[in-house]
């Protein structure tokens, strides 16, 4: 295999693995959008807070898995908190104030993190071995594999829970038709709260798997919300499989364009793809066109 191709493949694989983290954050958008028709524009900050929570727990000498679970619990609580404080009231009043309010909660989170943990980027300890694995001449590190495994794992678990648990089915019913679900005795408010908690949990988990690759700092998620939102929009807001594909594609494109055009151009082609996707398929590449009967 020639070196040029190998270099591109290396860049694509590294970017694609990172793209799975975008997909996981985008999955959080999908969850809350399905149930409550709103998304958290401070989702990236939840990722950051989750990573810091995990870091604090592991510096308190707790084992890795306990720290990650703790971070997920913190994330779930924060997701619930965002819905309760920033979203519910605005939606009840049928206005779009939640867009601004979730951004504000995110900004608060950045300030809080700067004051609690400081502005420095810190390494995130993991139990994975040092060094890299090589597949056909392409190097992959353990933390990168953990991103892939973690993103797939958590998305599969949540999807299964949606289909086979009572609570999951209730959330799905609320997504389909809130009024009808309430007539069947489902408390739609609880179902929406639950979906926000799960969304926060997956964001925090994303933080703990991204952090070993990128280090933890208050600004680690600055561009993450936007990228994940692009992934969610390109994929459509109701296909979790589509999210993974779109995430991998965006991550790989970013890395390849950074390699070919110079690191300053990393983000541009991804954004052009986003515009094209929106122009050609506004419901998303994997989205279903919803026909509303009146």
């Amino acid at each position, binding site marked *: 295999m020639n070196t040029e191709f190998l270099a591109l493949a290396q860049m694509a694989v590294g970017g694609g693995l990172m793209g799975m983290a975008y997909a996981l954050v985008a999955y959080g958008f999908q969850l809350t959008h399905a149930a409550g028709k709103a998304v958290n524009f401070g989702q990236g900050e939840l990722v950051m807070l989750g990573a810091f929570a995990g870091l604090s727990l592991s510096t308190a000498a707790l084992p890795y898995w306990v720290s990650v679970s703790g971070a997920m619990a913190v994330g779930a609580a924060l997701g619930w908190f965002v819905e309760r404080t920033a979203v519910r009231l605005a939606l009840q009043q049928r206005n779009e104030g939640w867009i601004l309010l979730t951004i504000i909660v995110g900004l608060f989170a950045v300030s809080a993190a700067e004051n609690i943990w*400081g502005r420095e980027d810190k390494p995130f300890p993991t139990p994975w071995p040092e060094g890299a694995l090589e597949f056909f001449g392409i190097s992959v590190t353990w933390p990168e594999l953990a991103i892939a495994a973690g993103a797939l794992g958590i998305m599969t678990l949540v999807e299964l829970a949606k289909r086979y648990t009572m609570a999951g089915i209730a959330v799905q019913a609320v997504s389909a038709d809130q009024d009808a679900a309430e007539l069947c005795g489902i408390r739609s408010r609880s179902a929406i709260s639950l979906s926000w908690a799960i969304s926060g949990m997956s964001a925090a988990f994303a933080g703990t798997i991204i952090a070993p690759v990128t280090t933890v700092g208050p600004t680690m998620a600055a561009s993450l919300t936007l990228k994940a939102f692009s992934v969610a929009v390109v994929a459509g807001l109701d296909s979790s499989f589509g999210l993974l594909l779109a995430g991998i594609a965006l991550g790989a494109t970013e890395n390849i364009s950074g390699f070919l055009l110079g690191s300053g151009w990393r983000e541009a082609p991804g954004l052009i793809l986003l515009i094209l996707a929106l122009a050609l398929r506004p419901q998303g590449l994997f989205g279903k066109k919803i026909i509303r009967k009146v």
Partner: protein
Amino acid sequence: MKAFRFILALLLSTSFSSGAMAADVVKIAVTGPFSGGSAPMGVSMRDGVKLAVTQINQKGGINVGGKTMKIELIERDDEGKNDRGALIAQEISSMGDIAAVIGTVNTGIAVMGDKYYVEKGIVKIITPAAGSASMTQWCIAGATDLPIFRFAAHDGIQAQMVVEQATKMGCKNVAILHDATNYGVSGRDDLVKQIQKQGGRLKVVAIEKFAIGDKDMTGQLIKARAAGAQALLIWGIGPELAAVASGKQKLGFRVPMIGGWTLSMSNFIDTAGPSGNGALMPQTFIEDESIARARSFIQAYHKAYGVTRIPSPVSAAQGYDAALLLAEAIREAGSTRPSNVKASLDNLKVTVKGTITDWKKPWSKWDPSNVETHEAFRRTNTVMGKVQNGRVVLANPADRIVLEGKMLKN
């Protein structure tokens, strides 16, 4: 009468404490990044200055023209941001009662902010910023009378050492990696210039840059490897240097990493972990208590700040020695007026025993055609350091005599 005087003094000192103090203290400003990516250098520099000031104040203070005055420090965090640094320089230079300024880590800030000090003739000792531009800008401007002094091994010296090291290790082809800041770009130019100056024995096969905040350097490294680089000459700061080290490890690209002294920053060493081992960089100070000259400073620093490792030992030691030199200059000037302090820094009479070396007339009268007049460090004050298991050690044990101060600058 005595009692009356005592009560009066007491009343004065409580009710007009700030006003009464102002006349009896020497005000020195300390500026630098105390937060953000350059913070290990800024904080260590500030703490080194503070340590020297505390020791001077414990002995009563500085004898300024027959009156013993204590030193008061005014701290400003520039966050490593050029615009903020320039604002701080404006603020300090308009305060009116500042005797001198010590600080600045980021070359861009010196380039943008120091003009305010020069306008007002306020003395500034730049430490630990090493970028060449912070002094050469005054050669280009043709300043005839300069109150800016540097107390750091500037990038010209550092680039010389990096190129010497790569040649010594038998490299032929090298790649230059640098960040896109003033520091990184001027470091790249210094390296290219030095390679030519040393006879062009090294061939630059790739020049790659990266931005502050980049976490994935595999692209740059793949290109350097494809071009056949046998060593990476690198100019950047902690977090991005760490990303380069871990990218190198990921790709199994085992070539030496030689670069500016920023490779000794704690946020490089900690984030890179084992992948940072073996990185080489010029140092003016090594945190090693077995070096007699350095011992008391290292122990005092550890005790004062409750640490077992200085975040940036070079910055701390340079801050400490710079404060000692400044205090001596103020004593010799017999005044806190910036113009007098400048004149005595230009021509220090007493040799100051520092933790780095014995400083014998480190600066001379500014000459715009010779930047070395306001540069305190020479190649002979500087040694190669190496990262080894979380610390910086001497790369070449024979250099120990330099740090013991037995090789004085000529």
